[in-house]
């Protein structure tokens, strides 16, 4: 018998079925943690349909996290009512892991608050739940009906996925970031390369990346179709999590003879900053091919790239400079903790002096909710993860995706700019 991948090991540990854990098989599995954001409103309505009403309980309130990050604070009355509905539900159901509008974006806040540990099986009512793969957890997004089922029963069906491996070697060139690696992967291998599969990232480059940079890659992997996206299970993960929780955990490592469906080798010694051009994430070009494209907005934030190192590199590039007069630069730190760090370290001051607008930690502009939508004909360079038509407002606007360094450099010149020039 051959060895097991990380996905196979974690699913095996949670399986309720008497079925072999091998790719393609379906199992029922128990879930360690459920994430739910404003979509909880739909769950509340579903709960009203449960008869008899005395069974209207969540399976385990301690295993559910509810957070307000989309539409926070409420931009209109409809959202305010949805928030109100959810707050009451959370109280009634005694869900203590509730983060109201002040904390930030789910995929940053959950790890920060110690909810995510290696080996966990996590589902979320948000597609980028793959982010927690950076912490050696098997985590994926699900739709509303599945989410409701998870709330009530704490279990769901899972397909055991094939695993593909990206082995990355080399040192990131100056002002090039992990975002450039993952965008390059999208460009080279298409937005379908990991469809319904688990990814394991490995190699010396991955080992040298910070946890924040690894989170960017696990997060963006959803755009490659991934079900799970694991970073390297190493001491860095252990040290990061130990600061956040006293719960015990163990790293789950793949067996040396684990079977991968495919292995991709990549060297990034000569990697150029990459940009995903409108309107698909695999319409990728190196920055040199798009420099000079005029922009109207520069967005630095989201669960992909709103972490402290992202703000820090932007501040380094913007230090002593002034953002182009035709550009609105919008910054949303991914969490309150990051915002505070930016405030204390002087990073926030640098950004503000350069002319950036710092919003409260939330999803806001990333999905075209509020706080920075685009008008028809406008162009935005964004550090987020989606450039679909209409994602940030007008369907006649264009979104380019790049690293925080590329966002900052472009904000200065008012056009797409190579951050290596700064």
């Amino acid at each position, binding site marked *: 018998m051959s060895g097991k991948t990380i996905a196979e090991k974690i699913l095996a540990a949670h399986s309720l079925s008497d079925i072999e854990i091998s790719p393609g098989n379906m199992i029922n599995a128990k879930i360690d943690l459920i994430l739910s954001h404003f979509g909880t409103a739909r769950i509340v309505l579903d709960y009203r349909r449960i008869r008899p009403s005395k069974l209207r309980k969540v399976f385990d309130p301690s295993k559910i996290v509810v957070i307000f990050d989309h539409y926070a604070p409420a931009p209109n009355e409809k959202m305010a009512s949805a928030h109100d509905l959810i707050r009451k539900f959370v109280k009634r159901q005694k869900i203590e892991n509730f983060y109201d509008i002040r904390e930030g974006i789910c995929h940053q806040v959950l790890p920060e608050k110690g909810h995510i540990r290696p080996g966990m099986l996590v589902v979320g009512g948000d597609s980028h739940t793959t982010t927690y793969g950076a912490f050696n957890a098997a985590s994926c997004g699900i*739709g509303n009906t599945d989410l409701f089922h998870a709330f009530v029963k704490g279990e769901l069906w899972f397909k055991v996925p094939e695993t593909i491996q990206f082995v990355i070697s080399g040192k990131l060139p100056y002002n090039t970031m992990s975002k450039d690696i993952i965008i390059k992967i999208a460009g080279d291998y298409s937005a379908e390369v990991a469809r319904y599969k688990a990814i394991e990232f490995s190699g010396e480059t991955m080992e040298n990346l910070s946890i924040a940079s690894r989170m960017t890659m696990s997060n963006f992997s959803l755009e490659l179709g991934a079900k799970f996206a694991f970073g390297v299970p190493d001491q860095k993960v252990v040290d990061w999590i130990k600061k956040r929780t006293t719960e015990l955990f163990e790293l789950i490592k793949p067996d040396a003879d684990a079977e991968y469906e495919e292995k991709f080798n990549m060297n990034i010694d000569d990697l150029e900053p990459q940009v995903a051009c409108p309107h698909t994430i695999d319409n990728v070009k190196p920055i040199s091919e798009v420099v000079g494209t005029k922009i109207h907005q520069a967005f630095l934030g989201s669960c992909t790239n709103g972490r402290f190192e992202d703000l820090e590199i932007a501040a380094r590039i913007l230090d002593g400079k002034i953002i182009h007069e035709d550009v609105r630069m919008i910054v949303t730190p991914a969490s309150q903790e990051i915002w505070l760090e930016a405030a204390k370290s002087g990073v926030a001051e640098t950004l503000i002096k350069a002319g950036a607008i710092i919003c409260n930690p939330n999803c806001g502009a990333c999905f075209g909710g509020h706080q920075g939508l685009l008008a028809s004909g406008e162009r935005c360079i964004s550090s987020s993860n989606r450039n679909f038509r*209409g994602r940030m407002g007008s369907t006649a606007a264009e979104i380019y995706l790049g690293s925080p360094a590329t966002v900052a450099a472009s904000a200065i010149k008012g056009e797409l700019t190579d951050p290596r020039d700064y």
Partner: protein
Amino acid sequence: MALTGTKSIKEYKDVLKGKVWVFPDNVDTDVISPTQYLSDNKGAVEHTCESIIKNFPREAKDGDIIVGGRNFGCGSSRETAPVILQEKGISAIVAESFARIFYRSSIARALPVLEIEGISKEFKTGDEIEINIPEAEITNLTTDKKYKGKKLDPILLNILRNGGLEKQLLDELKDKGKAK
């Protein structure tokens, strides 16, 4: 909110017959469930997929079946995508492959989804199709050719037969309530 609940879910049948709409590769959730109609359910159903197949929302009839290409339903996790197609009357989707969350949500909503390599080249819009869901057998009644896909796992087939995951769950709880 019309797009919640199980109203648009059809009663499960092992064998379905219908008229085919052929869809291209990489049909994303924004095409199916346009962002500008996210809070306008009627509008969403009236405009679904029109950005790629203009006459689809106008001419698709109850019981029609989609034959899609690769990566059907890619994009966001919005469950409105399968729901809107159901509301439009689509009774099943056969595609070369599906994006993961769309696939899950379709099963959860009791919208039968079958995967068959190369299938989109075997049909033209307007062909008549017959699908045997448990056997994963597909017949193009217009050309009289048969195709075989991968059978659905019993867990998934059960969800379809039970009228979707929500109904399955609510029925189970009802029984539990009686037993007590």
